[in-house]
C-alpha cells in the first residue's frame, strides 16, 4: 500500500458512505423529508432554523448584492480601486459580508481581458454577493469544460469573444471567492447607481455574460 | 424533443425540459433491467434479419467450452518445458503461438512478459478492458471494473495485496496498460518442485490469474 493510507487509518470516523443508499427510496423528496423528521425528533435540527435559512436565500442574499457592488464601482473610481485592491473589505463596506464570502477577490473585465469563474473540484461560489449558485454552475459539464474549453462554454451562453481577448479562468480551489466586475456598457453615462445596478446580471458577475445597456 | 436523448444525470429528476441531447444514446426510454432490454434487442434484430440466433448460440458455445484460459496455460507449460520455444515466445509471441491455433479476435498481436524473482508483470487496460481473449477467454468481471482499472497503475502493490499477493520491495512491479491492440500475456514463474511433472500436468497448474499477473502459480493447486 502507499504511504498515504496511514492517515486514513487514523481518521476513524471518516469512513465511507455506508451501504445504505440502495436501501433508500430513490426520490430525494422522500429521503429528505425522512431525514428532517428524524433530525427534528432527535433534536439535531430545529425546523424553524431550516425555514430561516431558506428565508435568508430567498429574500436577503442574492445577486442584487453583487449588482450593488458592481454599480458602485462603476460610478465611484475610488471605490473601484479599493474593490480591486481588497475585495473583502470593499464589500464589507456595503455590509453583506459573511458566509462563503469572506475572502473575495474582484477581477475586472476590460476590452482585452475576460474573466470567468468556476470550481472544478466542488462548486465554490461567492454566496454572500451572488446568493445560491445556478444549477448549471454545479453541473459536470460546466465544471469539466470551463477550464479546458472556456470559449466553447461561453458560446453556449451566447457570448462569442474575439481571439484577441484574453480569457482568464479562475478555478476556486481554496476559500477565495471570485467576483467578476463586468464592463460598464456604453450609453449608460446618465444612469443613476441604482439604475445601473438593475442592469447587472448574475451571469455577468460569474463571467458567462456581459452587461447590456438595456 | 427527439426520442434519442439522455438527460444529464444531475438534473434528471428536476427539470426534464432541460435535458441535454447526446447523440446515439436512448437509455432513458428503455427498461432498467438489462435482461428485458437484451431480450427485446435480440427479438428485434432477429425479426429484422440483422442477427441469426444460431450464430449467437455458437458464440456463447465458443466461450463456454472452447476459448478459455486453458489455451494460455498450454502456452505457458510449453515454455516451461521447452527452452527453445520459450526463447521464441519471448522474442515474438504472435509467431510462436500461431501453431497452437489460438490467434484470432482480441489476440492477433501478442506480447509475452516473463515473471522472474526480480520482476513481476501485471496487465490492465485503464481506458477500456482490452484482454487477450483468444488465449484467456472472457475477462473476469473485476478486470473490467472501475477499481482495478483505476488503481492498477497508481497502486499496483495495493491491488496485488487484495488478491493475496504481497511482493517484497526488492521486486520490480511492471504494469502493462493495454492502450493499443497489443495483448499481453504474463509467463508466470514455474513453481519449484515441479521437475517431474509432464507438460500436461504443468498446464493443469497454470491459473488465469497468474497469466494476468495478479497471482503466482503454486505447485499444490490445480487451476
Amino acid at each position: 500500500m502507499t504511504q498515504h493510507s496511514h492517515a486514513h487509518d487514523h481518521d476513524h470516523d471518516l469512513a465511507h458512505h455506508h451501504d445504505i443508499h440502495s436501501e433508500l427510496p430513490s426520490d430525494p423528496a422522500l429521503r429528505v423529508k425522512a431525514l428532517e423528521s428524524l433530525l427534528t425528533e432527535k433534536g439535531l435540527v430545529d425546523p424553524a432554523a431550516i425555514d430561516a435559512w431558506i428565508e435568508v436565500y430567498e429574500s436577503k442574499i442574492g445577486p442584487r448584492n453583487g449588482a450593488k457592488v458592481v454599480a458602485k464601482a462603476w460610478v465611484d473610481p475610488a471605490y473601484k480601486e479599493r474593490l480591486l485592491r481588497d475585495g473583502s473589505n470593499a464589500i464589507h463596506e456595503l455590509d453583506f459580508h459573511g458566509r462563503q464570502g469572506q475572502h473575495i477577490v474582484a477581477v475586472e473585465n476590460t476590452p482585452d481581458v475576460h474573466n470567468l469563474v468556476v470550481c472544478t473540484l466542488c462548486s465554490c461560489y461567492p454566496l454572500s454577493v451572488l446568493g445560491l449558485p445556478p444549477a448549471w454552475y454545479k453541473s459536470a459539464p460546466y465544471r469539466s469544460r470551463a477550464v479546458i474549453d472556456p470559449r466553447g462554454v461561453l458560446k453556449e451562453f451566447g457570448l462569442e469573444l474575439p481571439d484577441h481577448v484574453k480569457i482568464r479562468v479562475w478555478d476556486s480551489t481554496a476559500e477565495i471567492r471570485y467576483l467578476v466586475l463586468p464592463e460598464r456598457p456604453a450609453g449608460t453615462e446618465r444612469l443613476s447607481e441604482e439604475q445601473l445596478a438593475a442592469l447587472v446580471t448574475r451571469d455577468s458577475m460569474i463571467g458567462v455574460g456581459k452587461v447590456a445597456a438595456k | 424533443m427527439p426520442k434519442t436523448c439522455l438527460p444529464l444525470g444531475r438534473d434528471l429528476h428536476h427539470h426534464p425540459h432541460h435535458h441535454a441531447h447526446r447523440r446515439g444514446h436512448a437509455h432513458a426510454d428503455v427498461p432498467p433491467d438489462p435482461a428485458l432490454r437484451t431480450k427485446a434487442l435480440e427479438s428485434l434484430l432477429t425479426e429484422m434479419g440483422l442477427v441469426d440466433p444460431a450464430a449467437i448460440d455458437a458464440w456463447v458455445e465458443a466461450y463456454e467450452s472452447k476459448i478459455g484460459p486453458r489455451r494460455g496455460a498450454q502456452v505457458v507449460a510449453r515454455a516451461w518445458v521447452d527452452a527453445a520455444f520459450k526463447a521464441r515466445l519471448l522474442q515474438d509471441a504472435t509467431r510462436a503461438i500461431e501453431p497452437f491455433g489460438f490467434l484470432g479476435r482480441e489476440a492477433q498481436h501478442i506480447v509475452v512478459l516473463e515473471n522472474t524473482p526480480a520482476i513481476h508483470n501485471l496487465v490492465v487496460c485503464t481506458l477500456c478492458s482490452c484482454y487477450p481473449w483468444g488465449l484467456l477467454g472472457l475477462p473476469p468481471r473485476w478486470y473490467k471494473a472501475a477499481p482495478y482499472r483505476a488503481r492498477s497503475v497508481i497502486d499496483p502493490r495495493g491491488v496485488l495485496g487484495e488478491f493475496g499477493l504481497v511482493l517484497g520491495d526488492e521486486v520490480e512491479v511492471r504494469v502493462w496498460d493495454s492502450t493499443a491492440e497489443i495483448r499481453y500475456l504474463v509467463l508466470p514463474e514455474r513453481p519449484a518442485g515441479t521437475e517431474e511433472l509432464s507438460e500436461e500436468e504443468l498446464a493443469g497448474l497454470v491459473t488465469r490469474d497468474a497469466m494476468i499477473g495478479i497471482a503466482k502459480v503454486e505447485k499444490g493447486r490445480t487451476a
Partner: protein
Amino acid sequence: MNGVHDMGGMHGHGPVAPEDEKHEPLWHAPWEARMLGITRSMTFPKGFNIDRFRHIRELMPPHLYLARSYYDHWYAVCVAALLNGGLATKDEIKSGHAAAGSAKRNDAARADQVWASQKSQGVFTRKVETPPLFAIGQRVRARNINPTEHTRVPRYVRGKVGVVQLHHGGHVFPDTNAHLQGEAPQHLYTVVFSARELWGEDASARDEICADLWESYLDPA
C-alpha cells in the same frame, strides 16, 4: 484523492445547457430548500468542518456522484456524517424516526441564530509565522502529488508550471483539516497557468487558468 469530483478537463459530460437567468427558479424542487436548511443548521459530529464536508462528498460512490444532483450530494454527506459520527443509525435514517427510547438533544441551532451564523462564519485566514517561500511573479511548478486523502490541487495542474499571481497570506490547509489533523495553515497563492501549458498547442495562445494553491503544493521552477 483522484476522484470523479476532480472534473477539470474531462470530456463527455455534454453541453452546459444553462437556464435563462431570468427564469431559473431558486429551487428546482421544494426538498432542495429543505436540504439546504438542514445542512446549514443541523448538529454535525464534533470537529466537523467544511473541508471534511467536501471530502465526504468526494467519497460518494462515483456512480452516485455523477447521477445525483447537487443538494442530493448534501443529503449523502449529511447521512454519512450522522452515521460516521454515531448521531443516527441506518435504521433511523431508513425509517425517518428516532429509535424508541433514544435521547433527544436540545442544542440544535435556533432560527434566531441563523443570521448571526450567516455573517460570522467563513474566515479561513490564519497567521503563519514563516515568510512566504514564493513571490508574486515567480515561476512555480505544481507538485505531482496523488494523495488518497483530501487535497485541493486539481489533477490538471499537477506537474505544470505557472506564475504566482496573488499571495493571500496564511490559510487553513484543507488536506489536514479535512482529516481532523489540525488547520496547519500555509501560505496560499493564486497561480496562473497558460492554457497551452495545461492543454497543449491546440489551446488558445492567450487564455489563462488560475488556481489557488497552498505552498506545499508548489516547487520553484
